[in-house]
């Protein structure tokens, strides 16, 4: 895969430099992709599979990634996907290994069971962040259309032939707020998550913008890919095979991905592994003063 062009490497003045006060991380899912890391651009490595438990890295690879991060004086965040009991066992082994080796890293949690387990068995061993699957933003790509003005148009009733003129006006303030908000806007939930040791949340750079008012946690933002939908019925080849597969993994996602086009959605949708994405590169100038202090670059479609 070709690396994503990193607009973020350039400040407004055009000089290549880290954005002031902003930590930059690169998401790497396997050893081969460590090539995307360079000291000048990044201060942190996000390591691991975010969406699929079949792709959780084995301990040897994690160890090599840790050594690489240490050599480059980079921070290390271990991303975990949603898991079944078998995946949880794998993760427990990894957490035990990290604790045993006194690795001071951050764990990104995408499953309530993993959070409960970290709290019960590895309390205060790691810094914890709530992953994109649990933050639950509204990630529908059609939001772009919803939020844009459109010229009036007519609809003809199929039965009566009668025409009606339809005017689309962008939705009102409350609706916009709702579509930009996330699960974490709830102060009750924030208090609750704090008790579990959550310090940070991971955010998609959703097309309709962010509503972050009242969120006390530190915030990371991912670019350029926004995850739309995830499943354990792997959709890579299921349709061709006339079967909804769960536990028959042939890792097709490592060899290819899909670009999908629909006349109704004005952007390309990507499908890799068990997740679909759209691309919305981050414009650093749009961030403003909303407390985001880390940018996570995805040089490839994640899985």
């Amino acid at each position, binding site marked *: *895969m070709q690396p994503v062009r990193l607009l973020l490497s350039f400040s407004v003045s055009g000089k290549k430099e880290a954005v002031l006060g902003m930590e930059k991380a690169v998401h790497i899912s396997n050893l081969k992709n460590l090539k995307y890391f360079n000291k000048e651009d990044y201060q942190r490595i996000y390591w691991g599979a975010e969406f699929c438990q079949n792709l959780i890295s084995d301990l040897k690879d994690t160890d090599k990634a840790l050594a690489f991060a240490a050599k480059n004086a980079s921070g290390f965040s271990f991303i975990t996907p949603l*898991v*079944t*009991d078998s*995946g949880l066992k794998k993760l427990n082994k990894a957490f035990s290994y990290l604790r045993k080796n006194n690795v001071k890293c951050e764990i990104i949690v995408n*499953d309530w*069971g*993993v959070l*409960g*387990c970290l709290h019960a068995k590895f309390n205060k061993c790691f810094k914890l962040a709530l992953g994109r699957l649990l933050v*639950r933003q*509204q*990630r*529908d790509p*059609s939001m772009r*259309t*919803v939020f844009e003005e*459109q010229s009036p148009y007519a609809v003809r*009733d*199929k039965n*009566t032939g009668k025409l*009606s003129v339809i005017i*689309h006006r962008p*939705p*009102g303030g*409350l*609706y916009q707020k*709702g579509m930009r*908000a996330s*699960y974490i*806007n*709830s102060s*009750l*939930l924030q208090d*609750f998550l704090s008790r579990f040791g959550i310090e940070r949340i991971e955010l998609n750079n959703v097309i309709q913008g962010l509503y972050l008012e009242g969120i006390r946690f530190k915030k990371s933002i991912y670019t350029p890919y926004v995850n*739309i*939908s*995830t*499943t*354990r*019925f792997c*959709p890579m080849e299921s*349709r*061709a095979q*006339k*079967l*909804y597969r*769960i*536990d028959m993994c*042939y890792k097709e996602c490592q060899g*290819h991905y*899909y*670009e*999908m*086009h629909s*006349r*109704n*959605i004005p952007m390309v*949708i990507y*499908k890799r592994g068990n997740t679909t994405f759209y691309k919305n590169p981050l414009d650093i100038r749009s961030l403003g003063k909303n407390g985001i202090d880390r940018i996570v670059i995805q040089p490839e479609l994640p899985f």
Partner: protein
Amino acid sequence: MKIKAPVINKEEAMRLCEIGVDELFCGIEPSYWRKRYKCFSISQRPTFANFTRLSGLEKAIDIAHRHKTKVHIAVNAFFYLEEQYDMAERIIKDVLNIGADGIIVADAAILLKLNKDLLKGKDVIIGCDAVVFNSAAVRFYKDLGATRIVFPRSMTISEMREIAASDASMEYEVFIIHDLCFFEDGLCASCKEASGSIGLRKDKKGNEKIDLFSGPLISAPILLRGYLGGCRDRFQQQKVSTRDDKDIGSARPFYFWDKKHIQGCGACAIYDFKKMGIASLKILDRRLPLEEKIKAVKFIKKCSDLLLKGPVDKNNYIAKCKELFKKTFRAECNLYDCYYPSVFLEKRKQF
């Protein structure tokens, strides 16, 4: 095992109770919610798929209780805005006060908000939207007061068995028929409920009105040119190599959700569900026509009853279910519409 069916009005409640459902589930969108938050559904369904008056719901609950049938109320938006929690709490209090037997939630914050005494003796059901895939997640929600977990769609029989065995004090509920989708509701932003179309329809008085699509998370009063609803869209697919980003051929069109409401069946898995102690078999889709709901209840009841007459060979049971399916729905069952294909398939290869 209980059979649970969706209901949207008291007439449906009566008919479904008469044919012997053990549990009903529904949503409610009272006027005070609609007045303030008309864009936001409280239970992921458009208004017409919910009760709209507490009095109507109370009558349905009375009917159900006369038939010894429980009623669970879905208050299961993925999340609410900070200002909406108070009203959601009020709705839950109201429905429990008129006799509802429990609530279905997807948002842990709702449970944090509610007084534990209010839920005493009631069923607190964690819906599939909360995506509970492992036994640690079951414990997580149990600590919040949950009494039952609804398993998400994409789990194998052995995964469910493992979880059910890990904590027998919890109840578990599974999807059994209709509404099969590739994607997990709780992990999907193009939630299938966005599906719909724009057109004209006649209201009760015969006036023509513009149909609105019900948007994701919401029933949105928004009209868009050519928009047929997120996951019903047809996507042309191009296969691209991860090595060099080059096209390596086209593939069949893809739909996030290519099923009709009346598709997806897991009746053959009832054999395993009974053995693992599943509490309830859920028939999906509140928006389904009543006749289809009745057909589904009768079919699932017949499949369940096959196991009442003593030990049955699993293969025989599956064969009889297939026969019943064909007779009821006038179609052969197939793996693509199968909720739990792991009943039939052994693991071929696991990396």
